């Protein structure tokens, strides 16, 4: 018999993979949801960030790594770079998750904005250093802006739609462990 806590945790992990799969799938469709010139938000990163800041145990690093490398391969980006930098960013946020558990949402938003900015700058810089063809920097900044604007929406969806919320102080799971 699987205990309910483990079951719930694994269901949420599956849900995370399913969401990322849906995002990738949507991007692969020969249908354009956004204008050709305006990039859509980087939903995979957004969901990962929003979840890792709420319930880090729902997004363990092997799952994140798998999703990120799959995104790299299927979106024909530089293989391994997005995954490497993305994993660094996610682990950075995860290691400090308990620090801003009590902080307001605005502080979290600012932190995510900073991390995403570093991620974007890092990607652009490494592309430049290794002389890989890359899109103009303005377009990257545009995507960063759009991604940041959509962050509150992703958080709201995760929180109210999917029930991924920060544990309240003193909240315990079904087995009585502190969250």
């Amino acid at each position, binding site marked *: 018999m699987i205990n309910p806590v483990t079951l719930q945790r694994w269901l949420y992990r599956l849900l995370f993979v399913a969401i990322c799969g849906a995002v990738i*799938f949507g*991007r*692969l*469709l*020969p*249908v*354009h949801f956004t204008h*050709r*010139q*305006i*990039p*859509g938000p980087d939903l995979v990163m957004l969901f990962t960030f929003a979840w890792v800041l709420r319930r*880090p*145990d729902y997004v363990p*690093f*092997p799952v994140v*790594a798998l999703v990120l*490398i799959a995104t790299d*391969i*299927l*979106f*024909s*980006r*530089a*293989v*391994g*770079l997005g*995954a*490497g930098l993305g*994993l*660094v960013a996610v*682990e950075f946020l995860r290691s400090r998750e*308990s*620090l801003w558990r009590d902080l307001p949402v605005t502080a979290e938003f600012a932190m995510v904005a900073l991390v995403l900015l570093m991620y974007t700058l890092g990607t652009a810089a*490494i592309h430049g250093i*290794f002389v*890989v*063809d890359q*899109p103009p920097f303005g*377009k990257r900044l545009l*995507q960063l802006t759009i991604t940041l604007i959509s962050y509150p929406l992703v958080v709201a969806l995760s929180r109210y739609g999917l029930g991924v919320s920060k544990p309240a102080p003193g909240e315990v799971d079904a087995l009585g*462990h*502190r*969250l």
Partner: protein
Amino acid sequence: MHDHRTGSNYSRPVRRVLVGGLILIFFAIFLVWRIDSPRAERARAQIVDRVVPSFDWALRPVTRVANMVEDFQSYARIYEQNQELRRELQQMKAWKEAALQLEQENAKLLDLNRVRLDPALTHVTGVVLADSGSPFRQSVLLNIGARDGLRDGWATTDGLGLVGRVSGVGNNSARVVLLTDSASRIPVTIQPSGQGAILSGDNSSLPVIEFLEVADAVRPGDRVISSGDGGVFPAGLLVGHIALGAGGRLRVRLAADYERLEFLRVLRAIEEERVTGSGDVVPRPPEAQTPQVDEVGE
């Protein structure tokens, strides 16, 4: 900070090492990809080949529904469209007449010149499976691949105009990098003036003309065809027409309908014969060579 989530302190360093190792592996993969790009891209093509066709059952209905929605939206302005189509039909009739006359004339001229058209230029038609078009990368995935004899570098058209080139062939799928992709560079000829130039994509819908010798001899509306220089492409495929972009740059309005890429033709390009060697001015007679070499040796 004491970690109370996992409740096990000893598992943290192990985890940290694992994460660090994974990050290192990813960067190593990136380096390998950068250093040996062709092989890495081939590996990527194989993975895509495995993954994307298995989505096919889901891709098709979703695409169909999305297209239906698009069609439904167009009902709203069906009257205008009807009028527009009538006007276009009228124009087309005129063009058809002109084309028939030209065809006859062309046939006569070809007969007079005894021109033999390249019989090796046959094509395979594929359906667009997936489209990872984004503002950063412009490519589509076809459902034909090495199984159908596709090779890297072959030209792709939509029946009217050039669309792109095959770049990355899996067994059952192939990726076509569109002319609008920022990595796309093809040699073209601009028709009335006959000048060569390079058409380079920049992720906008109108690729840029570069390395043009006399820009004054080119006007908006001129035809742009592939030139076949460097054996990259078969020559003479229609690419589009010159348009004057913002900032006075010459751009090309593509003849292929990029909004609706559904079926694409991949042109089989048979390896051309090449002239190698720099060409000796006076060919040396074969029997005179051996004694000469001996003398030099002594």
